[in-house]
């Protein structure tokens, strides 16, 4: 398993947990709030520590990133941006059809939407990376 796969597994795990807790919080399930806050802060720290753990150079002579890695990363970025854009468009366009067009929403929903988009981006990027490299570590090794 290369560093991009490890990093993707980390991103996938954290973003999935965050989305689960986000949903439980939205539906106001008891005790979800505390867990959500704990996870949110630990994830924020994790995303800062992530490059130090996974993206550090392992050796001077060894090739760490090559053209295939760049290609995989570029495709994953496109997939992640597309997913995030689809969610954003849905979040902006669907509510007026559900409720009356003149209904107001709390402004607190805007940073929550931004945060959700970030989580969705990480989730989509991680999935796209793992789909291309393979979910397991061996990558078709013979």
């Amino acid at each position, binding site marked *: 398993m290369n560093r991009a796969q490890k990093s993707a597994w980390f991103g996938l795990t954290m973003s999935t947990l965050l989305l689960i807790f986000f949903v439980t919080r939205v539906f106001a399930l008891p005790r979800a709030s505390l867990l959500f806050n704990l996870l949110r802060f630990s994830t924020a720290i994790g995303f800062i520590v992530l490059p130090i753990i996974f993206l550090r150079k392992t050796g001077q002579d060894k*090739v760490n990133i*090559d053209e295939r890695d760049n290609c995989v990363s570029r495709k994953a970025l496109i997939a992640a941006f597309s997913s995030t854009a689809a969610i954003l468009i849905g979040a902006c366009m669907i509510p007026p059809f559900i409720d009356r067009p003149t209904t107001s929403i709390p402004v607190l929903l805007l940073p929550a939407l931004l945060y959700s988009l970030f989580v969705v981006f990480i989730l989509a990027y991680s999935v796209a990376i793992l789909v291309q490299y393979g979910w397991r570590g061996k990558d078709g090794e013979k």
Partner: protein
Amino acid sequence: MEKSELKNQVRRLRFDNGEMTQQQLAERVGVTRQTIIAIEAGKYAPSLPLAFRIAQTFDVPIEQVFQYEYEDKEIR
């Protein structure tokens, strides 16, 4: 639209060249071992510069390493 596939002889050429390992080839052409694995398995089509570097490593013309096979023979 015709279907095509890029075949390669990298695995055979490695063994013909003193049983070169995937890691050794990767280091010589400047990529990761996973990329060599993906090329051998036909999961990744290398860029032209990389394809030329691989051919140069084995000291053979590029067409001996990679073959572009058309399914529709008439187009050829």
